[in-house]
């Protein structure tokens, strides 16, 4: 008797080895089949791109803290508002100034017994037709600081812009809007080159200092200015008085109308950063929801088939009830009343998505159960339950994967829909949240296409990626064609 037991145990351990080998082989076979399906490869490549985006996030976005500080206005304060992407310039006749941050200038520090002189030289190449809205000098300073700034144009003209005194106890941010401060001086500069007639006729309040600053010094500079393109130099001199005073991190912000890869929204947030940050959430939400719900669904179906009888009937009735409910409207109302967190949202979606594979899995399991009973009669194996699970799981895995891939887009769209309606978890920057902002600010009406197109496009692309993957897997592993 004992010997038989050992023999039986040996049988199962041997068969497990062979099963692992079989599994590896079927994986290899699967891979060679998969390679042949063109769109499967495309899907895989796209997925890798998305994953790279997710992994390299901190390196590829200009605002690495975009995720945590999305609602923090101070983080974005220096960006332009509702600015189109920089590359729009390629398509326009008149090029807009690209919003830029001039950082890390050449510093020259001179120490004298009474004070310290810090000189910073900013080089700026202006190659546009429409001048910047403003040039803002920023720095961190403490104590007694006197700041002077002048600009040297490519035509050699120099204009003194500002001389300002700061006295603070703690470290504060120094912000000097140069154009604003130097308005009168710049206009007077302009008048030097303008014809007397134009100079007299022009209306003061219509003049834009920035325009004059970046225009050719010739007649017409005040009424029909022509852009002066070339290298500009902004020299900043800070005189620091006192032991504890200092100035650091000087920076000039060139306020352009266009900015970055994908422009900004009306809260000045860099949309490209938002998009990249949202990638990981989209993938996370999609995969987690798909994985959990499909796993639950499969177990549900297998359990139904395994037990049969009244358990099967009861579970079927429960299944029917869940299937009769449209997820999104319920999700919307639920979110409106209960304001769920992200996790609750995912859980909720799983509650609806698990129904997907149940029927197919159940019929597959029933089929196996039929045959396994016969096998069991011959092979005197352990409980049929174990056989079913050991045989079923390897067979169901490919089906499960295909199903999961195809469920991901739905979950992503669902979350995006909820967030767009303002019912999502506002602490998480998802593509839906970005769209929510767009909706609230009537971006469609205002034609801010760079705010609306990218998030939705990303949703569509990620959905397409998983569609490619899922369909190619389905094509190879369709259970309706693969019966035992």
């Amino acid at each position, binding site marked *: 008797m004992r010997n038989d037991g050992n023999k039986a145990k040996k049988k199962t351990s041997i068969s497990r080895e062979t099963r692992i080998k079989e599994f590896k082989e079927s994986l290899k076979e699967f891979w060679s089949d998969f390679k042949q399906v063109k769109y499967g490869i495309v899907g895989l490549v796209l997925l890798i791109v998305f994953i790279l985006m997710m992994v390299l996030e901190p390196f590829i976005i200009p605002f690495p803290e975009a995720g945590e500080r999305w609602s923090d206005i101070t983080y974005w304060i220096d960006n332009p508002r509702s600015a189109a992407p920089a590359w729009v310039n390629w398509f326009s006749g008149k090029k807009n100034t690209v919003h830029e941050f001039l950082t890390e200038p050449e510093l020259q520090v001179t120490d004298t017994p009474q004070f310290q002189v810090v000189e910073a030289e900013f080089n700026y190449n202006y190659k546009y037709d429409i001048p910047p809205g403003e040039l803002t000098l920023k720095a961190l300073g403490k104590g007694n600081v006197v700041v002077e700034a002048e600009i040297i144009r490519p035509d050699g003209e120099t204009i003194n812009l500002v001389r300002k005194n700061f006295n603070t106890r703690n470290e504060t941010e120094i912000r000097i809007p140069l154009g604003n401060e130097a308005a009168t001086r710049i206009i007077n500069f302009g008048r030097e080159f303008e014809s007397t007639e134009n100079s007299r006729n022009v209306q003061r309040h219509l003049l834009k200092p920035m325009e004059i600053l970046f225009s050719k010094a010739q007649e017409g500079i005040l009424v029909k200015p022509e852009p002066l393109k070339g290298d500009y130099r902004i020299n900043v001199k800070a005189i620091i008085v006192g032991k504890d005073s200092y100035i650091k991190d000087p920076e000039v912000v060139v306020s352009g109308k266009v900015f970055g890869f994908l422009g900004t929204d009306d809260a000045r947030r860099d949309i490209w950063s938002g998009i990249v940050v949202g990638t990981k959430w989209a993938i996370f939400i999609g995969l987690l929801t798909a994985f959990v719900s499909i796993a639950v669904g499969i177990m549900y179906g297998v359990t139904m088939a395994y037990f049969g009888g009244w358990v099967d009937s009861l579970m079927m009735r429960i299944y029917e*009830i869940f299937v009769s409910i449209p997820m999104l409207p319920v999700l*919307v*109302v639920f979110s409106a009343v209960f304001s769920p967190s992200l996790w609750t949202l995912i859980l909720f979606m799983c509650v609806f998505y698990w129904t997907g594979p149940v029927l197919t899995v159940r019929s597959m399991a029933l089929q196996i159960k039929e045959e396994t009973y016969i096998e069991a009669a011959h092979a005197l194996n352990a409980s049929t339950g174990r056989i079913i699970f050991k045989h079923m799981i390897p067979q169901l895995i490919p089906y499960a994967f295909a199903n999961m891939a*195809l469920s991901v887009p739905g979950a992503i769209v669902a979350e995006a*829909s909820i967030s767009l309606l303002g019912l999502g978890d506002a602490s998480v920057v998802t593509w839906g949240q970005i769209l929510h902002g767009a909706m609230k600010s009537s971006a*469609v009406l205002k*034609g801010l296409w760079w705010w609306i197109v990218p998030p*939705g*496009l990303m*949703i569509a692309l990620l959905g397409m990626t998983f569609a490619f993957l899922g369909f190619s897997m389905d094509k190879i592993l369709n259970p309706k064609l693969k019966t035992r």
Partner: protein
Amino acid sequence: MYGQYAIKRIIYAIINYAIIIFILSALFNASMEATLRSQIEEMIQGEFLARDLTGYTVEEINELKALRRDELYRRYHLYDPMIVRVFWRTYDTLTFNLGKSTSVTSSAGERNVSIIVGEAIPKTALLFTVSAFFNILIGIFLGIKKAQKPGGLLDQSTSILTMIVYGMPSWWLGMMLIMFFVYKLNLFPSGGILSTPPPTGFMYYLDILYHMALPVLTMILLRAWGGAYLIRNIVLGTLQEDYIMSARARGIPENRVLYGHTLRSAAPPIVTMSVMSLLTSFGGAIIFEGIFSWPGMGNLYWIALQQNDIPVLLGNLSVTILLYMAGLVLLDLIYGFLDPRIKVGGKK
């Protein structure tokens, strides 16, 4: 046979619906009651403002109010145990007594939720049935063409299209199309179902069609390929059947074999698939209708959300679920009718 089948389905559906409404009522009981309480206060204030209260002291007035409040609370079962309250709420919902809204009004200015929702139903129905109609038509046409040359250019290109739009939100495509056709090209109206002022007579219907064009176009661009893909698979499967070869051997013309024998035999799964896709797109309608300002049930959710009108949200939800389930039941009935094995029953 079929009669039995039909009745069984309908009864099951009704029971399921009752169960679902019960669960929903329990879930949302707290917030509905909060709304109810404030509505009762509103009612009381209104009543008392209209009365002549001279000669009453403040305490007496408050006492009267308290009495009235008590009476109303009793009427609305607010003193009863939880389970009874949920039961009454379920009952009310099932009998379409959906309460009053907090701020949303119907076109006539009423705040009766049932009427508000009722007004929205036909507009949603119109949009979705028209879209579904075109989708099915195109789906069948394309699907059969694809099945005739599997792996051919048409087949592959439409399959790729299916995958491309698979994860595309309907509302996003809608936004894109609006930005392009409405704001760039100025070809279509930006929203709504009718122009203001609405034209009369024949132009009235044309006006509706004009407003419907863009949303329907969006739906078609999104769903037609998927339908064609599924129909193609179903038809291909059917074409492998022996009875198709047998029909051809009997000298029956190819057109008749295709559209008669094949399509008719494949009708049950095709219809199932079409209706199912109709029903699922129903779910995503909320933002979609909102974008187009189409005054249907989806848009109603949007409006109710903005005004935080819970009774309207819940009433709308109950009706949405009802229609969804009715759709499923209808599907089962049509399927049974089309499949002679169910319609007529088994062996005699």
